[in-house]
Structures are given as structure tokens and as C-alpha cells.
């Protein structure tokens, strides 16, 4: 393509604390093009899209719009330029009509001075815009009565009515049925005919190939390749997404013993369907998959945070009933959660108090008094053993770095002497040095005979640390691999093994947990 790009981003870099999210990335979209934007979780796709739509600011680099340099500081400025983003969480007002949403804040006025809205004209204009896009929706229908797919269409119509030239879509198909996906693709093609460009992030390889003109692949914050549609196959995309050196985090040899956790036919109302897996003493079992594949949900079922609808759990070969997290803790299960600030730590408490939180009863005397000496000894031991860097055990956990906070969570569970440790993204958001320490520690724990179930979205971590890997997609286990037979491309293939879409449509929006009002 030799035409001038609609938008060109040059040498874009973006740092987050401890992470280089984007490293000198070039990116371009041509007019009237449907661009597929691919990569693993954390490859930097969403970050780049958010810079383009003004949500994040870039550290370095230039953005050219139709050949002219532009600065985009906010989503509002992006819209003024002609860039609109359709997010996974839709940004419509549910209690207003389709037409009211499309013309929100730009309503056609009857008598402009008094500000009366001309509702009839507004509805006709809205229906006209949608008709141009091949949509038949009544303009007076309330948005909350529409399906998610139709709401997405309304958002797109709204964008078009604001003269958007570039529409960014971050996983727009994740909640749609296959019929709805093909309707969306039809709409995308019509947008293309009108000269509008679409950037489309998705993990569903099959469907992306049916609609895109070109694919850009990201990995570890870098652009690793571009494929024209003709040359793109699922295999070639996966190879680009995962092709990297492995062996950064070797797990030390550990003696593998009897099964400590056996899960049979586990299913829950959180989307987990018929999951069976085993973790043995001394074994690190990796649970791989894309975000939303249901891995954390499996952990939540095992930990008693969510309720299982069927299936059995066995600890040390004996069936256990886990109704709440207390049962899990007393069965010897420890959970190092993904979001340590929300689920792992009491930030306002001290290092000491957090470390002993799960064993308070054990170190209390008959009058319920917590044994101060025991508490000090235990805390000191773990501060030393895990080399937690803190001014003292009475330091508030809030004041520690991410890596040290993670070690405090670990210390809390180690103090409880668990049989099974579930670690959800154990090294997310901590720096490289601390990462290596956590990995070394995991090896040591395995050598001590603890079974570890490790959920990770980082392929090198999965490849390096796991004795065995289960891959999940859409709440099911879609693959199992032994150490020595681990293959990144095969794992990625299993992780994107989406079933025929219509079969897995969830009862959609109504099934989401209702927000809790205070």
C-alpha cells in the first residue's frame, strides 16, 4: 500500500512502573482499511489503542493524522480529531432512547434559544444514520432494552454521526453470538465502503481472518510483524505471537509425590464448565489461557469464594466440602490472589499482622490473646526467609513495594503451612529482580512438598516453571501438556480453541452480578 496512512504512529514508547509497555512501536492505519491487531495478553495492544484514543499519554513518539502531527490528550480530543473507541463496557446511557444516545449533548433544537429538543426530528435523523449503515432500529427504543450487539451498533452509529474516520474496537465480539458477529462484520465492511477505517482487537483467530485486510502482531511491547490477509493463517499468527526465547525461569528439580488436589468435573455459576485436574506434592501445575478463560474462576471455586454447582474436590485423596474460604484454609489451601491489594492484604495493617492473619487462632492462648512472642518470631523468620525488605515488622504494608507486598502475602500462607498453594499471576506488576526471587521461592516450596497451582498469562513463566500445564478456554480445559512436551504454539492454539459461538452464548447482560449499593 502506497497511499498516505490515515494515522501513523512513530516510535511510540510507554512506561508503567516497573514495565516497559510499549517499546518504540510504529503503527499505521490506511483509509478504508480493516486492521486486525493481535498479540497475547500484555503484549501492548490495549496500551497503544488507549494512547491513540487519548486515555493514556505517550512517553515518546509522534502521531501523524492525515500527514499532520497531532497531540491527543483526552478521549474528547481524539473524538474531535475523528477517532472513536468502542469499549467492551459500553458507554451508553441505558435509560435513554437510541436517538437520545446518538445525539447526546448535540440534540436538534426546536427553538434554539429556549432549548426545547425536537424529539421527532432527532428520531428521524437517528434512524437515517442507522439506515445508512444497514441497521433497522427504532430511534425511540430505550437502549437498555437492546441486546449487547445492538448496543454496539448504536455506539458505532453514534461515532459515525460525529464524523469519525477511525473506529477502534477492543474485543468487540467477546459477548456476541455468531449471528451477531457476522452482522457486526457486515457493518464493518459497510464502514469500509464509506472510507472509514476500523482497528479491531480480538483473540478469535478464525473470525478475524474473515474480515481484516491486514494484521499487525505485537509481542512484549514491540511490533513483531505485519501480515497481509492473503499470507495470514492461524498458524502464522500464533507463531508470531509467541515466538520468543524460553528458559528464563527454570524450575528446580523436586520430588513429585501423591496427588494433593484432585478436581473432578468442577463446574460453577461463574462460567467454569467440567474442569478436571490434579496437582501432586512437589509439582507446579501451570494453568494457561487468555484473560477471561476461567482460570481465576477455577481458583475461586477451589478456595470457596464462589459456589460450585457440580463436581468434587479431593485433598490428599479425601473428598472435602468447601463452602467458604474458611473451609479452604482449614483444608490446607492457600491462595495468593491476582489482585493482592484487594484480596490478599490488609494494607493499613503491619507486616507482622498480615503475616499472622491466617494463623491467629493457632498462636492465641485460652483467653484469646495473640501470643506476642510467637507472632514476632514467625514474622522475623519469614521476613528473613523471604528477604522481605522492610524497616521492620511493624511497618504498614501500604508502604512496601509491590514485590515485597507479594512476599508478605506468600509469607502469610507459608505460615499457615498449606498443602496446596494457588498462585494467581504470582509475578504480575513486580519488578524483574523480585520476579526471579518469587520463582526461586516457588521452586523451593515445591521441593518442600507443597503442590502449587500457578495461573499465569505470561508464556515464559508457564513454560519455565510448570511441570504440567492445563490450558483453558471459555471455562473448559482445552489442553494438557507434560513438561518436556511443552510447546508455545500448541498452548496458544488450545487457548484460542473457541467453540462454535452460538453454543456458548451466556444468558448475556442479565446474568452479570448486580452491583452492590451502599
Amino acid at each position, binding site marked *: 500500500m502506497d497511499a498516505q496512512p490515515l494515522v501513523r504512529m512513530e516510535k511510540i514508547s510507554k512506561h508503567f512502573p516497573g514495565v516497559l509497555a510499549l517499546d518504540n512501536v510504529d503503527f499505521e492505519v490506511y483509509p478504508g482499511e480493516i486492521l486486525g491487531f493481535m498479540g497475547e495478553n500484555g503484549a501492548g495492544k490495549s496500551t497503544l489503542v488507549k494512547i491513540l484514543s487519548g486515555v493514556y499519554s505517550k512517553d515518546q513518539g509522534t502521531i501523524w493524522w492525515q500527514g499532520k502531527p497531532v497531540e491527543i490528550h483526552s478521549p474528547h480530543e481524539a473524538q474531535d480529531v475523528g477517532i472513536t473507541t468502542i469499549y467492551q463496557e459500553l458507554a451508553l446511557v441505558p435509560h435513554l432512547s437510541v436517538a437520545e444516545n446518538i445525539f447526546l449533548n448535540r440534540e436538534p433544537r426546536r427553538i434554539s434559544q429556549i432549548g426545547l429538543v425536537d424529539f421527532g426530528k432527532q428520531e428521524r435523523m437517528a434512524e437515517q444514520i442507522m439506515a445508512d449503515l444497514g441497521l433497522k432500529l427504532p430511534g425511540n427504543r430505550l437502549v437498555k432494552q437492546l441486546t449487547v450487539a445492538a448496543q454496539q451498533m448504536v455506539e458505532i452509529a453514534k461515532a459515525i454521526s460525529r464524523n469519525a474516520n477511525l473506529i477502534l474496537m477492543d474485543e468487540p465480539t467477546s459477548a456476541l453470538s455468531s449471528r451477531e458477529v457476522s452482522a457486526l462484520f457486515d457493518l464493518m465492511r459497510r464502514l469500509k465502503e464509506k472510507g472509514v477505517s476500523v482497528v479491531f482487537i480480538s483473540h478469535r483467530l478464525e473470525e478475524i481472518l474473515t474480515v481484516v485486510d491486514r494484521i499487525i502482531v505485537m509481542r512484549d511491547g514491540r511490533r513483531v510483524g505485519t501480515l497481509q490477509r492473503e499470507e495470514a493463517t492461524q498458524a502464522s499468527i500464533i507463531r508470531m505471537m509467541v515466538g520468543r526465547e524460553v528458559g528464563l525461569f527454570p524450575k528446580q528439580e523436586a520430588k513429585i509425590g501423591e496427588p494433593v488436589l484432585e478436581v473432578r468435573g468442577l463446574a460453577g455459576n461463574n462460567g467454569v464448565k467440567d474442569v478436571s485436574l490434579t496437582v501432586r506434592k512437589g509439582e507446579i501445575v501451570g494453568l494457561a489461557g487468555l484473560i477471561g478463560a476461567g482460570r481465576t474462576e477455577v481458583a475461586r471455586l477451589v478456595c470457596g469464594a464462589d459456589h460450585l454447582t457440580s463436581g468434587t474436590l479431593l485433598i490428599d485423596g479425601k473428598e472435602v466440602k468447601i463452602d467458604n*474460604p474458611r473451609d479452604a484454609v482449614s483444608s490446607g489451601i492457600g*491462595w495468593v490472589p491476582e489482585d493482592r491489594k484487594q484480596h490478599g492484604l*490488609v494494607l493499613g*495493617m503491619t507486616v507482622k*499482622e498480615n503475616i499472622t*492473619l491466617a494463623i491467629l*487462632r493457632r498462636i492465641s492462648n485460652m483467653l484469646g490473646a495473640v501470643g506476642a512472642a510467637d507472632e514476632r518470631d514467625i514474622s522475623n523468620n519469614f521476613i528473613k526467609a523471604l528477604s522481605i525488605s522492610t*524497616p521492620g515488622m511493624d511497618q504498614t504494608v501500604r*508502604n512496601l513495594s509491590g514485590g515485597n507486598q507479594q512476599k508478605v502475602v506468600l509469607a502469610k500462607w507459608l505460615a499457615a503451612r498449606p498443602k496446596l498453594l494457588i498462585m494467581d499471576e504470582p509475578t504480575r506488576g513486580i519488578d524483574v529482580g523480585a520476579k526471579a526471587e518469587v520463582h526461586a521461592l516457588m521452586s523451593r516450596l515445591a521441593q518442600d512438598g507443597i503442590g502449587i497451582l500457578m495461573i499465569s498469562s505470561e508464556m515464559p513463566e508457564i513454560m519455565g516453571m510448570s511441570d504440567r500445564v492445563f490450558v483453558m478456554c471459555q471455562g473448559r480445559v482445552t489442553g494438557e501438556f507434560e513438561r518436556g512436551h511443552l510447546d508455545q504454539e500448541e498452548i496458544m492454539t488450545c487457548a484460542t480453541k473457541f467453540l462454535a459461538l452460538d453454543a456458548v452464548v451466556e444468558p448475556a447482560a442479565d446474568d452479570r452480578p448486580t452491583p452492590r449499593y451502599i
Partner: protein
Amino acid sequence: MKTSAVTTQPRVGPGGTVRGWFKHTEVVLFLVIVLLMVLGGIANPRFLGIENLKIMTRDIAILGIASVGVGFVILTGGIDLSVGSIIGLGGVMSAYFMMKWGLPIWLSIILTLGLGFLIGLYHGTFVTKLHMHGFLITLVTMGLARGAILVITNAFPITGLPYGFNAIGQGYLFNLIPIPVLICIGVGGVSYYLLRYSYIGRQIYAAGGNSEAARFSGVNVDARVSLTYIISVMCASTVGIIQAARMSLGHPGAGEGYELLAITACILGGVSFMGGEGGVPGMLIGAILIGTLQNEMVMVNINPYWHKIVISLVLLAAVTFDYVRRQRRT
């Protein structure tokens, strides 16, 4: 790093430096109380006289008991608005049991406290099982209890309480220390032990600081939260009994507006409205300050209509301080 560790740790013993001392809410409040005493003594010498001190310490003790009770709930991030109505109900019910049912003093007290236990349990159940905010369910009780008082008493005080009962509110130890002060020391002492040294207290702090993390660590968060609501209502019932004994009657209007005083004392004493931070010494010092302030306003002849405004402004200042401190941290 080091200084912020001190400010965020009101429960840990003060650091060595004088400046470190001033970072503690309790120390600052103590100085304010001393200042109030000196000013009051200058304005009206009778303010520091033994007779007034007896009255004042009794008032403070009564407020202290209610404050410690509601303080438990605030530690978990909740609130108990029913304090005032429960005080009224506690007084009326103990009088009712004695005078209408003719029960002995001890049994009337036990029944009244038992009723408090049940009401607290019902608050706790709504809060933990329905995930209702304590604000709502205790607001309901605030109205219900006051209404029940009116139905039971027909809006007339129940009079003629036995002498032995009245000693609870009017008596002195060694003719010097009011009985309510002894009760307050007892309640405060047990509460201090519970919160400072026992695992139950630690779990209450954890539930208030981060209930999710506490739950996933195996803490029975629902039981701990329910316990705080029970403690709160039982403390308020105790205050109701003391008030009735002090007035020698079960008054249907007793305790009106008392929740404002008790909550103010807690927030003033450094109990964070977000939960997880604060302690019994702070709650009690907050109560001492409010009690001193109230007494002083009487002794220096400030128009009583202004009292509530002054107390509310103190609450505003304390809450503002709490929020500002929190914002600076994030």
C-alpha cells in the same frame, strides 16, 4: 517513609521524639482537654470544684460506654444510628420489667441486656447476610425502638424505681468515684483487651481494613461484624439502664440525639470512618473531650440552643481531618 509509618499506626506505641508524640491523635486531644479545663476553671472556678467534677465524670463515663460500643461498629466500616433510641429503650424496658412485671433488679438488667443482644444480632444479620449497610438497618431500629418506647409507656415516664437500682446511676465508690465511671472503666478495659490483644480484635481490624482479604485468609468476617453490632447495642442498653437509675425513672425521651455524641467522640478519637483504624483509648479520650465541652458550655452559660451546633462543628472538624489524612495518603 519512616514518619508516614508513624502517622498510619495510631495503635502502635508512640515514637521517641516529642514531635512523634504530636502525631498521635490521643496526645493532641489530651492537650485540648487540658486547655478546656484551664479555660473553664478561669471562667468559672466552680467548674473544677469537686461537685462539678463528680457530675462531669459521670456524664463522660456514660458517653464513654456508648462511644466504645459504636466504635466497634465503626472499626468494621459500619455505623450504628440506633444508639440514642436503644438508650431510651434500655431505660424504659428495665423500668418496665421491674415496675410492671415486678421482676427483681438483677433479672430486669439481664433481660434488658438480652434484648440488646437480640437487637444487635438482628442488625448484624442484615448487615452480613443481606450485605445491607449498617446505616439503613440501624436507621430502621432508631425509629422502631423509639416508637416501641412510646407504645409501651404511653409517653409517660415509668417512675418509682427501687433504691438499689438507682444506685447504679447515682452511687459512689468511697463517696467519691461515681458508679458509672467504674462501669465505664470495666467496659473500656474489656474492650481494650479484646481489640488490642485478642485474635478476635485483630480479626475485627482486618475485617474493617479489607474484608475480602480477611475472608480469604479464613477469618469469619460475618461473625466478627455481627459481634460488633451486638456489642454496640449492648453498650447502649447499659447506658440506658444507667440513665434510668440516675433519673430514678424510665423516661421515654432518654438518649435522644445521643448517637451524634457517641459517633463524634469516636471520630474525634481517631477511629476512621472507613474502618480498620482506631482504638479504645481514642474513643474514650474523644468522649472525655465531648463531655468536658458539654459541661463547660453549661458552666460558662452558653445558650443551650447553641450546644448542638458546637458539637456538630466538632464532628465536622474531626471528619474533615480524617478524610484529608486519607487523601494525602493516596
